[in-house]
């Protein structure tokens, strides 16, 4: 079996992009939202989250800005860029095809 983190890393990028697409968020909020929207199934720790965020920023798909957060502290907010939006659409489509294909095989008796 290949390293589990490989697959998760790619999909984690997708999740982050999707979540930020709705509104800019900081890392803590993103992790919380992922947990909430997946019904506590997906719990992303900071060790996976922040490297992913920095990588996405490096790739130019998300932008960072320091703003005042809800608890009156400074936090780094990430927002989707235009190329990020395009990437999101592409990655989402790819995920659709991939997961459908896998389900087809796995669900067959």
């Amino acid at each position, binding site marked *: 079996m290949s390293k589990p983190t490989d697959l998760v890393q790619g999909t984690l990028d997708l999740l982050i992009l999707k979540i930020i697409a709705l509104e800019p968020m900081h890392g803590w909020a993103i992790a919380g939202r992922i947990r909430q929207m997946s019904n506590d199934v997906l719990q992303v720790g900071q060790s996976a989250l922040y490297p992913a965020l920095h990588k996405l920023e*490096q790739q130019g798909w998300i932008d960072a800005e320091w703003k005042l957060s809800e608890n009156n502290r400074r936090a780094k907010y990430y927002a989707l860029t235009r190329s990020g939006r395009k990437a999101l659409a592409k990655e989402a489509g790819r995920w659709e095809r991939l997961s459908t294909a896998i389900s087809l095989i796995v669900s067959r008796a």
Partner: protein
Amino acid sequence: MARWLAQLGLRLRSLFLKARVERELEEELQYHLEREIEERRAAGLTLEEARLAARRSMGAIAQSMEECRDMRRVNFIEHPIRDVRFALRQLLKHPGFAGTAIFTLALGLCASVAIFGFVDAALIRPLPYKEPLRLVTAFGTRPDLAQSQRRGYVSYLNFLDWRARNRAFSSIAAYDVRAGFTLTTSAGAQRVSGLRVTSGFFRTLGVTPALGREFHPDEEGPAAPPTVVLAYSAWQTRFGAKPDALGQTVSLQGAPHVVIGVLPRDFHFTMAEHAEFWATIRGTQACWENRGCRSLETVARLADGVSVQTATADLDAIVQQLRSQQPDPNPATAKLVPLREVMLGDVRPIMLMLLSGAGLLLLIAAINVVSLLLARSDSRTREIAVRHALGASSARLVLQFATEALILVAAGSVFGLTLATWGMRLLSSLLSPDMISRMPYFEVIGLNVHLIGFACAVSVIGAVAFTLAPVVRVSVSEPLAGLKEGCRGSARTTWRRFGSYLVVAEIAIAVILLVNAGLLGKSLYRLLHVDTGFNARRLATLSVSPVSVPPVSIRPGPGQAKAVDADREQPGALAREVAERVAALPGVEAVGYADLLPLSPGLAPSSGFQVVGRSAGGVIEDHPVRRVSAGYFTALQATLLRGRYFTEEEVTSIRRVVIINETAAQRYFPGEDPIGKSIVIGAPPAREIVGVVADIKDGPPETPAHAAAYVPFDQVGFGLVVRTLQAEEPLFPSLVAAIREVRPGLLVQGETSMTERMNRLASASLHRATAWLVGSFAAMALVLSLVGLYGVVAYSVGQRTREIGVRMALGARRRSVYQLVVGEAARLVGVGTALGMICAVAAATLMRRLFFGVQSWDAPTLATAAALLIVSALLASYIPARRAASVNPTDVLRAE
């Protein structure tokens, strides 16, 4: 595009505003931690518990931060900088290792770069002509000699026909080999170097003058006005490099020559030997009007698309045409030789040998450094194992090794190149001006693009090797083995064995260099002490001629010169007068003269030998013939084997007698007495053999013994040999003055002692230089391999200290410890020496052309080299042996 710019912006920001970026990263993760704590507080835990729980859930923050940094691709630049700092710190902490490695590398690089500088100047740098590979020299020769001959002469009249009739050359020109002019200034007359050329000479070479112009076609020939082109150096020294030199006149050979041009600074022509003045073939000279007087060498440029074969065929047709039209003894076939080969052919094998020698030295240096690195990585196994355990990837470790290797190589290169520049300057200064004029491409030696490229290439290869060595070492051994105390893994013995292989290789290489240096030295000795057949000590030589006739004719055929000079001189009269005058001088013991002196370079006039009363058997062999005086052999102190020398009367009346040398006697009269027999030399009538003399070296000393004959002198110009009672030097002024008094307008030149002539011979100087260089390589190689041997033996002793302690505790005596250590060293040395001997003999056999009078398997040389190596190696291993034997067994066992 915008995305790429944004990315770049981010990266640059990470790089330059590093502190701020770090702070932001920390702050970001800190925020996350605080939210975690808040959440847990909200769930009811105390501050402490919340903090602990949060920390635990977040895991290793440091690692995440590192990963984030990785994502920002900052580490591409960060890590190398850190690696360099670490490597530098390591090297400074171990100055002994660093110093030895850098010094060894510098030494190897210095030698190879310096030699490569000369190789580049001679063989790689193109000649200063346009498209030099299209240039050839053309000459006529006998078909049976065509294969081996590289240079040959042409007569002026033949050359004119070649120039007019050929279709294969875009241009052809010639130069007269009888070089030199008499320059008359207000200070008097002096001999200067110069060459006479045909008008198209510089055009053929593709050389444009730096100033002025080259010759016009109408500046060549009997009615041409006298013009001269200056060499750049002559323009600088004699005319102060002023542009108004053009139009001024220079008095050469008594005639005012107008300066029409100056050659470019980088121009050189090997066969011209630093000619200062270039004039044309003009006016009348007996040799140029005689089709049989061959005094020119040619330079021709192949026309576009014409090959050497086509051109040779074309020229051959012309040669045959001329032969059928003229009754003269013309050569039978044409030969073309690339000009580059004529100029560089002699020097190439020597350069290659020196380059191989330097290369071997570099190899030893590299092997030494590899050994050092292996020994050092041995002591670093603990450090590396720890780093590995802490999570360093193998890529990072390899990069670390690579950085250290690069730093070592870079430092070694810097020092090596600096040393090489000094080395090249030193070697250049050792070349005598004589040698440089014969090899003008050596005038400018210095650091250039080729050399730096060579040094870089070598450095890169070295860096790769020096990275691989410790990497392989570390990956082969068990990664965790280093963590254990007092580890004695099998990897250690493998590496010890590998280390000893390296030393064996080093010793073998040192042996190769030593043996070849010894062979070269012995060869040089043989060359300088070759049996010349005469006594060279206290022998003065010089040449004499009337100005209108060439100094010493290079190739008059038998009877040719006579026809030329008959209307000018009673042949031999001038020489007799001069000889009588000189013999009367105080300090002179004996005088003799000949048309060509012994040990003369170049081609010798030869004629066919035919014994009367015997059928020739089809082939008439040519052998050199010298025209000599009665007192010639006595002055030389040659050895008379049979019969007698010429009498004065025989020489005066030019009797048809001949003296042959020993080889000729054995060749033509084996087992019988040649005295009284008749032999035809050249053309009939036959001559009577009156004496047999032991072989005299007529040409360069490395020519093998050949048959030769001596006939009574019948020329005008001659070479004089004077046996002096004391040293030759002080006598020259009075000699020259006395000779000039005999007749006005006599040209006296080339006054040297015979020993000086021998030392200055091209072969001797080149041999000497090569012997010295290879000798120094051998010395350095010996030192380096001894250092390597010492290192390996000392290391092995260090490894086996405990074993030795145990042995001694069990009762072994000091002597057996010595035997153990020295025995191990002796085994290495023995194998290395044996291997080296075989390779050395093989290498020497490949280069046997460079040796003189010495076999490739010369036993004394091999034995001396082996003895030298073994003795020094044993001495080198004595020190660690002593240290081993003085080990205190109780101390060793206690440290366990």
